[in-house]
């Protein structure tokens, strides 16, 4: 059942077009994450759903109702801002009660709702405090509490964790995931952090320069990226790309040439082989975590530049012709800079893209 629908939404400021036509739908209870680099328009899109920015073109529906030109307060959405945006002169209780008071709910109900939210978020002891007397994590909780007391149709989060330190961030991430599960509410979450996107989302919308690059579940995006942008954006460290040349294409066998390949050649087994022509460029993608060091049948043969030990694993920086290749090796392999790295990979984990960057 479609709960939130964006229908060819566009946004421009004068001549500058920021969102160039975004369409997607979300079902009730779904956790959707907008992800993309800075300036891709993900926050603008979220603010348009909230009603804080005007929609230049297109239609927006929440719960079957056209709200494209509806006032923010009448859309029944709530938003958690990056800066938390708590009312500085009100204490925690008043901050959470404000929306209900504005909706003229009876005081007893307001108290019950706020206390319930405070219990869920463990804010009971802080209700009398002013925001300035709270830590970043506590403020974040109050901001979330303020949005849950109103039982909105839609929860919006605008990079809510980016002002927190790393430890608190992963803790809050888990809490948001739990909250989503217990409330069963529809949530739209904006982040530039692909780890947050991967861990929280039911579905991820990858945006670049105002356009949707791909929509899919986290595993879909990881396993079947539509193009090199998505492939490089999802996963950390970033996927390695090698620009190879097609030497021959016969049946489902695609023979690729590049000096980095062991023996200068790589035989990729793909159904798309028939569409490739000899001499074409094919971009070969390999994730750092899929490459294995010291294998009997090496696929890549490279020179090690340097190694970074992370304790449990080691990041190896190797050099292919021009392009650096990163390998995430488990343990601490005994290697020195200058050593030759023979790297193996499961053929299923080789990604192929055409010269334009689209998946083959």
């Amino acid at each position, binding site marked *: 059942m479609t709960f939130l629908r964006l229908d060819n939404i566009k946004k421009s400021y004068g001549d500058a077009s920021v969102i160039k036509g975004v369409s997607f739908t979300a079902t009730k209870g779904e956790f959707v994450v907008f992800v993309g680099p800075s300036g891709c328009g993900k926050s603008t899109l979220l603010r348009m759903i*909230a*009603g804080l920015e005007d929609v230049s073109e297109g239609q927006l529906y929440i719960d079957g109702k056209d709200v494209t030109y509806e006032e923010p307060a*009448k859309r029944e*959405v*709530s938003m958690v*801002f990056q800066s938390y*945006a708590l*009312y500085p*002169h009100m204490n925690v209780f008043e901050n959470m009660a*404000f929306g209900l008071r504005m909706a003229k709910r009876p005081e007893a109900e307001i108290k019950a709702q706020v206390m319930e939210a405070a219990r869920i978020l463990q804010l009971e002891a802080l209700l009398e405090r002013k925001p300035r007397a709270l830590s970043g994590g506590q403020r974040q909780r109050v901001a979330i509490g303020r949005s849950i007391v109103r039982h909105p149709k839609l929860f919006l989060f605008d990079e809510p964790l980016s002002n927190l330190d790393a430890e608190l961030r992963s803790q809050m991430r888990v809490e948001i995931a739990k909250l989503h599960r217990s409330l069963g509410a529809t949530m739209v979450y904006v982040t530039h952090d692909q780890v947050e996107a991967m861990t929280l989302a039911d579905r991820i919308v990858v945006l670049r320069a105002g356009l949707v690059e791909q929509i899919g579940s986290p595993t879909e995006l990881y396993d079947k990226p539509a193009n090199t942008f998505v492939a490089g954006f999802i996963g950390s460290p970033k996927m390695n790309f090698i620009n190879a040349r097609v030497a021959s294409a016969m049946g489902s066998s695609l023979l690729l040439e590049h000096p980095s390949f062991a023996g200068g050649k790589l035989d990729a087994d793909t159904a798309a082989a028939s569409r490739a022509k000899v001499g074409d460029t094919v971009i070969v993608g390999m994730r750092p975590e899929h490459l294995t060091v010291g294998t009997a049948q090496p696929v890549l043969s490279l020179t090690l530049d340097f190694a970074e030990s992370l304790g449990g694993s080691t990041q190896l920086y190797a050099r292919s012709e021009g392009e650096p290749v990163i390998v995430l090796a488990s343990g601490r392999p005994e290697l020195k800079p200058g050593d030759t790295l023979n790297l193996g990979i499961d053929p299923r984990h080789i990604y192929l893209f055409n010269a334009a960057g689209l998946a083959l």
Partner: protein
Amino acid sequence: MSEAMRTAPTKPNRGYGRWTPLWFLAPAVLTLFLIGIYPTLFALVTSFRRYNITRPREGFPFVGFENYIGVLTDSTFWSSLFLTAKFYVTVLPIQVVLGLIIALLLHKPGMGFLKSLARVTLVVPLATTYAVVGLIGRLIFNRDFGVANQFLGFAGFGPVDWLSTPGGAFAAIVIMDVWQWTPFCALLFLAGLSMVPGEIEEAARLETSSKLALLRHVQLPYLLPGLTAIMILRSADVLKLFDMVFVMTRGGPGSATDLISIYIQRVGFRIFDLGTASAQAILLLIITIIISRLYIRLLYREV
């Protein structure tokens, strides 16, 4: 210097000595002393003396609190003070409300150039000398060729003799004061409104569609410091308001616009009873300080 360096090599040459800050402060302190502190102290001393400079042969003996008792039992002093208070409570609400409306209009997004122009225009009345405001007022409210009566004529009313009727004269000085000071309120409120973080305003817009609720619950706390400043500055200013009224009405007709500072001026520089005038001025200073402290106590809140 080089000798000192050689004998005490561990001490770095900071380029300034113990007394250097003093020399930087001295001009400001000296100026303040000459134009502020000394006259105030002089007035304080004078207020305890019989000091009528038209009768120097009687000398200027100390008379204790005689001047203060005289002032406090002078019904004209009290009626002038009352008139000043009436003037203040008339102009202040008008200025605050009009200023707030202007600030809210200028705070709305859009029309950037016109808004900058409006902001610059707001400074013009503030930059105008009080005496000039009075002169302009005299022209505007002239019975025969003033623009005020011209407009009343357009609306179908007969000419009003503004400056020679008690009500008209009071209204005229109120209007000129509102003209001069509303922009100041608008600018302070505008500064307050722009202090409200954008995301907080947006958070409130998601919770209520009422502009009034937004103003009352979210923006008002940011306006209170400005409002306190306005009330303090305006009460001090109204208590010393002299030039504009003096030029327009000289306190008349009768005592219709005889504000406290005009009365003190008459006592001090027409009757030349400087002792009494000083006592009046000191009392005024005390009133100003008390009122300011009250405002800060009652209104001012850290956001």
